[in-house]
């Protein structure tokens, strides 16, 4: 009897919870968060996202609210969202305040910079979107990939020296120092960030590059394209004299995959590790 009652209650409560949340319209601000929402199987609820959300491909075709730090109140509201999932970077603050003053629910999550953040964000999203079970499964897969990575790195004796380069347009390229997501992923993947004595992104001094003597240049695919491919990259001052140039070791990966700390980040670290050790 008790069993039947419980079952009925459960069924009811599921129905009730569904009744409470008839397909909520979600706007997601932040590439990793959008990716996670898709990974949790709720991509169909998204009605808009920011310009950093371009994976999976269907996310790229969502209506865009502009860059996450320069949102427009009316733009976001014109998508008629019931729920806005945003990173703590989303702004400007006055815009966020105005949006919330119209009564739309906003959930701010951390901008993930480590595997721990990613895991927390997946759980948090699972809770907000009422899909705890899927979140658990997703984190399970994520952890499995991390375990596999740990197993691989623990037997690798050599730690490759890596320099991550970022460039906006024609300005001086910048190197990623410590406290950057590039630094985190390099360390997780079992490499050493040669520029970790600096904090944040710093302009690249040619002499320092030579001194760092990186064995690998890590770069986002977009930056590499902007610079004009491997050859143009090694024409940048100082880079030609590095071991990386001699062996032609450039690793380019998608920016969101590599630095986004979304649900694919464990897989990204694995891939990076694989490519670092491809020669051996």
């Amino acid at each position, binding site marked *: 009897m008790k069993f039947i009652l419980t079952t009925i209650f459960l069924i009811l409560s599921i129905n009730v919870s569904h009744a409470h949340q008839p397909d909520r319209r979600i706007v997601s601000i932040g590439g990793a968060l959008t990716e996670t929402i898709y990974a949790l199987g709720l991509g169909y609820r998204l009605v808009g996202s920011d310009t950093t959300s371009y994976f999976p491909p269907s996310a790229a075709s969502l209506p865009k609210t*502009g860059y996450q730090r320069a949102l427009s*109140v009316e733009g976001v509201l014109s998508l008629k969202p019931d729920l806005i999932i945003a990173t703590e970077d989303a*702004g400007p603050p006055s815009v966020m305040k105005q949006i919330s003053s119209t009564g739309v629910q906003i959930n701010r999550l951390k901008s993930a910079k480590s595997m721990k953040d990613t895991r927390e964000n997946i759980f948090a999203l699972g809770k907000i979107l009422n899909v705890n079970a899927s979140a658990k499964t997703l984190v399970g897969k994520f952890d499995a990939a991390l375990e596999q990575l740990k197993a691989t790195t623990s037997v690798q004796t050599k730690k490759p020296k890596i320099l991550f380069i970022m460039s906006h347009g024609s300005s001086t390229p910048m190197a990623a120092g410590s406290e950057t997501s590039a630094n985190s992923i390099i360390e997780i993947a079992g490499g050493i960030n040669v520029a970790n004595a600096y904090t944040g992104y710093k302009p690249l001094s040619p002499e320092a590059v030579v001194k760092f003597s990186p064995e690998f240049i890590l770069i986002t695919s977009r930056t590499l394209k902007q610079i004009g491919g491997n050859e143009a990259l090694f024409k940048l001052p100082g880079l030609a004299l590095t071991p990386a140039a001699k062996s032609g070791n450039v690793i380019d990966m998608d920016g969101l995959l590599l630095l986004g700390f979304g649900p694919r980040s464990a897989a990204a670290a694995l891939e990076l590790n694989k490519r670092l050790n491809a020669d051996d």
Partner: protein
Amino acid sequence: MLMIRTVKWRRFSLLRQREQNPFVILVCLSLILSLIVLIATSIGAISISLRDILFFDLSEFDQTILLSIRLPRVLLAVVVGAALGISGAAMQGLFRNPLADPGLIGITGGAALAVSCMIVVIGPAYGFLGLYSLGIAAFVGGMITSLVILRMSRLTGVFSVTHMLLAGIAINALTFAGTGFLTFISDDQQLRALTFWTMGSLGGAMWEPVLVCLSIILPSMWFLTKKARELNVLLLGEENAAYIGVDTHKLKRSIILTSALCVGAAVAVSGIIGFIGLVIPHLIRLLFGADHKLLIPASALLGAALLLFADTIARTIVAPSEMPVGVLTSLVGGPFFLWLLIKQNSNGN
């Protein structure tokens, strides 16, 4: 820079031949501005029809959008545009240089330095201050710079416009160095925040800043209009102005401070929006002549109209996202200005 005297101004012969009634010109400009206000209020990412607005036949949601989001933004564009227009006009008159603008003597540079300090050194503020910290910093920064420049120009004993301009240029360079250094030590996040602030935006307009701005800019406009004839006479040079009975020292001080107040208020709520302060007064001079009595209010009206027009395009053309308004002001105003220059030259021949 000081000696740029190359631009020979000619007004349209067409407009010159008719007697111009300043009152008629101002009424026309006001009508144009009102028209743009109406259009700007009725379009946006969320469509609300003009008919519904005029009869106030709106759903609660539309009301919220209109009253607490769109209207403050429209008004902010008007107020900021007017502030930039009049301060540009006043500065050009004061420095007797058609290429002067508030950026030249470091007021915007000072504001930018204060904002970078806020972002990079002090870090994010929360609560009420979180919303307004950058604005307050910009305003304070702008005012401090203008006071320093005033002080510097008096160091030599002679309070001369040339000293003021030179001091301004030096201070400007210093603030840029400061901002550059802070940019260098900033992390990625701070850098982006800084970049977006420098680009200027009217997004996130709320009633409080609109009202604060209005309470600074309306009295400034009244004051500058009152000083219009004295500004005219100042264009004869300080010595000649003194002979006609103008207290040039007092005039210069009050004009600098009033312009700094206007620019400070504008920069505080919208970041750095270029083009308007420099070009709007030019446009007015090309069309209607250089008399400050007309120039100051007309620059306010046309500045407001141009910024509102540009901002309306900025927030609708790529909806639901937005373009930086500074790009649009230049894009809308630039070709028009060039057309005027070309037309003026062909008229002159």
